[in-house]
């Protein structure tokens, strides 16, 4: 039997209307305890109104080794930013 509890990633919604944001990770034997632990570790200074926990093992991450192939090509393609349009004043803030 594995002695170590599995790792969980913790996401907190700071206030109503905002997205849940990744705040860190912790160990817990199951999802219910992970929520309890997240409450105690990450919301003791009124950081949130909602908590999500996800088993870290369930997260698929991009390969750091293929960083160049994945992200470099977009560096010199500034035309993909919508900053070349004239926006009519009536539209207001985008």
């Amino acid at each position, binding site marked *: 039997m594995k002695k170590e509890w599995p790792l969980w990633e913790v996401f907190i919604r700071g206030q109503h209307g905002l997205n849940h944001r990744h705040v860190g990770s*912790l160990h817990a034997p199951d999802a219910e*305890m992970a929520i*309890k*632990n997240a409450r*105690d*570790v990450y919301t003791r200074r009124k950081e949130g109104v909602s908590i999500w926990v996800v088993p870290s093992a369930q997260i698929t991450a991009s390969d750091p080794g293929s960083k160049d192939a994945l992200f470099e090509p977009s560096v010199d393609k500034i035309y993909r930013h919508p900053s070349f349009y004239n926006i009519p004043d009536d539209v207001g803030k985008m």
Partner: protein
Amino acid sequence: MTEPGDKIANDVFFDWLLRRGDTALVLGHRVSEWCGHSPVLEEDIALANIALDLIGQARLWLSLAGEVEGKGRGENELAYLRDAWDFRNLLLAEQPNGDFGQTMMRQFLIDAYQSQLLKALATSADNRVAEIAVKAGKEVDYHLDRSADLVIRLGDGTSESRQRMQAALESLWPYSGEMFKGDAVDQAVVAAKIAPSPEGLRTEWLSTVDAVFTEATLSKPETDFAHTGGLTGRHTEHLGHILADMQFLQRAYPGATW
């Protein structure tokens, strides 16, 4: 001010408030002893949070006690400058932490009681008591959720954790009866509609703990024997050691602040 609590003699009300404040203070101090020593980091932070909640509750109760006493003593004087025989906490609160399971069992037995008491106090005829009870009630509901969950997990866990939880239950059970033994102080607060009678809380408390023990596969001891005395100032040998630790700074350097 004509709060309904005024109908009761101040010294009696003071005594009753000390029971609330001292139980929270002593239990809070006990739980704080885990800080930096818990089995896992997450539990360390959780226990420190609970200790802080309890010490916060103690501050509210003891401030009100000082106000009711009317002799110019505040929360600090009451917490740091009284001797063991003047403390009115439940004996259960001062029992040693033991292993983690014993700490959880002690917490669960008290949380289940506090949760019911605070619910009843939320409708106290004394607004100051009701306000403290509403605030503390939310904290204690979470404490109970956590301690009940851990008692179940450890009781219905491995054979070793189960054996430790059963031993904890057997050693602490005789200290639980004190919570439900009323005396003249209780009769006075009941008459003033400040608080419910301790005896009346027992049935619901039993149904809470029975349900948890069943799920935790633990057997409740048969005995109804109850150690008493904490609420009237006769304590076990443990309280003096707690106070020596807790009060050292104020005793050695009177009035020290930072």
